[in-house]
């Protein structure tokens, strides 16, 4: 009996050693860098599509954990990942203190959606201050004169508005509340802006999926989700009035218009939130996801591999981004990003 166990143990050990050796040989041959990143959940679908294509081309594996913008920021500051992704940009002082560089990677929109019987996608018109008052609980029913004045042709029910917001901290909420603070001074001095705010009213859904789910379940509700969710779930989005006074529908074209009219040239470290962008066709709540990387990375080869990946994504990744309903950066922004990367990240 004892002899049997001893023999079995020896055999297992031998097998394990052999396995180890052959694995080392294999990984030595591929010499592929493993790039790790963490952060925003919004950008996860397009990042995973890009990393699959990039791995096929160059062999480098990108491992991305979508734990939320706040998680991404703390992980890159702690140096546990090669890059972080955040929907909320850090200001230049915070970047300098942490030794980080920041650049945009993809653009999307935060779109108000409603669930009212008889109101299809793109029919309801809202303006920024009205949206702020709805979320503040000041406008409580759909047939409030403020809303009906904006929608003369629509018959709105007298039902109470069920407000849906995010229960978790999110970059999407940051962009949404930043926009509300820009268009409503009452909101700015009240709940203010942030990844989590003290929402005056409404229920909280977990993630974009949670908000989309609640809006679809609860009659006479309004919520805000990333554009990709609107399309995938066939939700009834609203038209939003931009700073030029036009009611704009969310679409790749209107997000690109907002990005083009945003003043990236004068934004140090690309510290710019694109909401309420000027431009006749700009969608008001357009958001960018930013990549954060160390300026003086400890492991230069991994940093270079990550930068290769991002350069490839910026230049060649447009088709995948468009297929997933994201908006790739406009061409002059791409060249600005590339010269920034070259100058800042050693």
């Amino acid at each position, binding site marked *: 009996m004892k002899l049997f166990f001893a023999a079995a143990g020896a055999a297992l050990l031998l097998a394990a050693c052999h396995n180890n050796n052959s694995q080392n040989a294999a990984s030595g041959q591929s010499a592929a860098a493993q790039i790790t990143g963490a952060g925003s959940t919004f950008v996860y679908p397009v990042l995973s599509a890009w990393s699959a294509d990039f791995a096929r081309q160059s062999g480098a594996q990108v491992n991305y954990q979508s*734990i939320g913008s706040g998680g991404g920021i703390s992980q890159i500051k702690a140096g546990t990942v090669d890059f972080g992704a955040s929907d909320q940009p850090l200001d230049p002082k915070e970047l300098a203190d942490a030794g980080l560089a920041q650049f945009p990677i993809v653009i999307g929109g935060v779109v108000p959606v409603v669930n009212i019987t008889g109101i299809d996608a793109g029919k309801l018109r809202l303006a920024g201050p009205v949206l702020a008052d709805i979320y503040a609980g000041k406008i409580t029913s759909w047939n409030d004169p403020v809303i009906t004045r904006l929608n003369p042709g629509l018959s709105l029910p007298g039902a109470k508005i069920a407000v849906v917001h995010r229960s978790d*901290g999110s970059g999407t909420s940051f962009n949404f509340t930043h926009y509300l603070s820009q268009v409503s001074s009452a909101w700015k001095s009240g709940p203010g802006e942030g990844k989590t705010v003290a929402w005056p009213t409404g229920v*909280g859904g977990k993630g974009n999926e949670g908000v989309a789910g609640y809006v679809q379940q609860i009659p006479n509700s309004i919520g805000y989700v990333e554009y990709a969710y609107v399309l995938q779930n066939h939700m009834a989005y609203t038209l939003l009035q931009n700073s030029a006074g036009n009611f704009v529908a969310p679409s790749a074209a209107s997000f690109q218009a907002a990005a083009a009219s945003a003043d990236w040239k004068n934004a140090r470290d690309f510290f710019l939130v694109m909401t309420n962008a000027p431009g006749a066709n700009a969608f008001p709540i357009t958001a960018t996801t930013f990549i954060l990387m160390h300026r003086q990375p400890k492991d230069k080869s991994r940093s270079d591999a990550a930068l290769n990946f991002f350069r490839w994504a910026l230049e060649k990744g447009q088709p995948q981004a468009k297929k997933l309903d994201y908006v790739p950066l406009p061409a002059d922004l791409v060249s600005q990003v590339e010269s920034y990367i070259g100058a800042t990240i050693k």
Partner: protein
Amino acid sequence: MISPPHSAPNNGAGGDRLFRLVTAGAAWLVLIILGAAAASMAWGGRLAFETFGWRFITGRDWDAVAGSFGALVPIYGTIVTSLLALLIAVPVSIGIALFLTDIAPRRLRAPVGMAIELLAAIPSIIYGMWGLFVFAPFMATHVEPWLNDKLGPLPFIGTFFSGPPIGIGLLTASVVLGIMIIPFISAVARDVFNAVPAPLKEAAVALGSTRWEILSQVTLPYTRSAIIGAVFLGLGRALGETMAVTFVLGNAHDLSASLLMPSNSIAAAIANEFTEADTDLYRSSLIALAFLLFVVTFIVLAAARLMLARIGRIHGRTH
């Protein structure tokens, strides 16, 4: 040669001692881990307790932007949903146990018992999804409007049943939680009802008792401590339940007396907000919430023990 007496059963004693050490070590390890968890949560929450003091427990704000946090709404949501869940689950569980031990025909007992136990095997996130996609719309279209119309206008209990019929809220979350804890209570109840000595029940039948009298005068008093233990096991599960609650409770930091309104619970608040908590005060407030949940659970368990001891003193311990 006769071997000297001291060399005879020595290995056995050594083995015994080792066994005693290992098991005692395991028990101590559990206590140490418990103490360490409580201490680390208290330590992590010290910034929140220092900043807010007692106002942390009574404060109603939860404002990350202004840096003002108060635990009243999560505590309220946790306690209300758990107590209501118990109110729903305990009669149903005892009924199930009685049915399975006494009333059901023998060939039904195994399948029904297995079905109840399968309820416990369902992951809690499935309960949450079922609650959100099936049960909440049902509540919103059929139950809540009825409650609003019939009970809302009444003078005192009306405040508990008025609100927009959105389907998610304290009532829905309580029902879902109640369904989740039924298998725990009914499994223990069934085992323990089976353990009541048949002569006791037969004697009651001989004296002319009805089924209800047997249950209330013989079975329940005999199994009292086990049933109360099972109830508090279910309560403990309900207090800590995260995913199911976060789907159907509404995650709104609002304090309202109405059961139809959404609210928040401690576990749901921590699960939702912990990864994005970017300031030290925010993180510390969430850890302080976890410590408060620990305290609430401890108080509930201590109350259970005291109640058991008191009933034991008055009515006599059965085991």
